[in-house]
């Protein structure tokens, strides 16, 4: 186990609209988190794994009528730092990667847009409330990287490819809610 120091600082801005048919908020966070750990990165400062320089969220909700509501959500987060190969060399018949300093590279940025439509059915006397919700996650089908691996190309052994693993494509969902 290695024990080190971490430093984190930043700025948050948050605007919230609560009245009217259109409600929602916009938030922005600028932050930087660094670490110094003896024995890692030659003791030099490096970015923490969870360092996210910019983080934006926009959430809007619009009441079209008393029962009918439309909402949307957009998030944007700077990609996480990662250690990446910046070069390669040959040594005794083998190709060997040269890596950046610890967390010297960056994953692609993460962003996503979701929308939802809610419809409340009319309340009945026995307090039974129910409604239907249709939502679409990741509307514009952004392929957000979960991990990036550097692998040998299948056709050319001298070539390295960046292979991205992503998790969720577009996800439509239909939900029926009731409470009593």
């Amino acid at each position, binding site marked *: 186990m290695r024990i080190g120091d971490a430093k984190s600082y930043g700025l948050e801005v948050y605007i919230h609209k609560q009245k009217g048919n259109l409600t929602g908020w916009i938030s922005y966070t600028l932050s930087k988190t660094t670490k110094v750990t003896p024995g890692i990165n030659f003791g030099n400062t490096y970015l923490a794994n969870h360092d996210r320089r910019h983080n934006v969220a926009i959430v809007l909700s619009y009441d079209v009528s008393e029962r009918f509501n439309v909402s949307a959500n957009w998030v944007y987060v700077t990609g996480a730092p*990662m*250690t*990446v*190969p*910046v*070069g*390669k*060399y*040959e*040594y*005794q*018949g*083998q*190709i*060997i*990667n*040269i*890596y*950046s300093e*610890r*967390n*010297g*590279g960056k994953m*692609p940025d993460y962003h996503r847009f979701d929308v939802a439509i809610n419809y409340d059915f009319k309340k009945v006397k026995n307090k039974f409330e129910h409604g239907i919700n249709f939502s679409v996650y990741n509307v514009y089908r952004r*392929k957000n*990287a*979960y*991990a*990036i*691996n*550097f*692998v040998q*190309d299948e056709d*050319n052994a*001298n*070539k*390295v*490819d*960046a*292979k*991205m*693993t*992503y*998790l*969720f*494509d*577009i*996800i*439509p*969902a*239909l*939900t*029926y*809610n*009731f*409470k*009593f």
Partner: protein
Amino acid sequence: MKKYYYILGFIIILASSCTEIIEFDVGESDPILAVDAEITTERKAHRVKLNYSTSVFDDENPPLVTGASVIIEDDVHLHILTEVEPGIYETLDTVRGYEGRDYNLTILADDNTYTATETLKPVGEIECAFLLKGDTSSLFFGDEYIVLMSAQEPEGLGDYYLWNYYEDGVLISDTIGEKFYGDDEFVDGTNFNGVLVVLIDTEKVDPVNKTMMLEMKSISEGYYDYLLALQLEKFRGSPFDGPPANPPTNLSNGAVGFFRATDVSQKNMCVVFFNENGEPNIDLIIQTCDFGCADAIEDLFGQ
């Protein structure tokens, strides 16, 4: 309990984990000098190979470094290497290293000077070496030849070894991934008879009617760490891996690779044949063997 919410969901998930080859900007780094250099106690032309690093996504081989000045020296001798082919520099063929001396490598390439220092440590003699087919019924060995060695490990911790194998004088373990290495942490000062040092894929060699040779080299702790780091690097790829890091180097000024100084001990291997009952044929072993291994054979393979 105030309210209960029951949510019935009808969810269509088109999602699953997918992979895709992407364009990925890792940032360009300037070419870095990579050094593959060695001085040994053998009298021969010693070779230094220089190349420059390239972008990781480049599908060409890294470019060779031509026109560099390369010097290997100890307290007594200074050897200037000549470029025999692009990127390959050699000493005269009368050059050898001496046990116990410090060797300095100096490279002048593109107005930069790179140096490395390595102590040439002595290696013990291989007393006997045996090549035999691994027991395919055991969990540990597949379809491989195993090499057993008899030797006296010198007293005192901090000895590191590397093993190569030759078939009719040709180095078969010629890439770094094929080399075997170890240290004396658990075997310091021991007299071995039959320690397993090398595994050879049966497709790589054909020991019938060939001279098989085992070579043992002394290496430094630094080079041992370098080999270990390369091996760890090879087995990466799981999502639970820690971040990668560069293997250590003994070169200065930002160069990568390693300058090795090694003492060499070689021994022809006794190839062990088994009869159909799985028993070793002792007479046949001795015929293929160097002199003086009869006792070791009797000890290891005698019934």
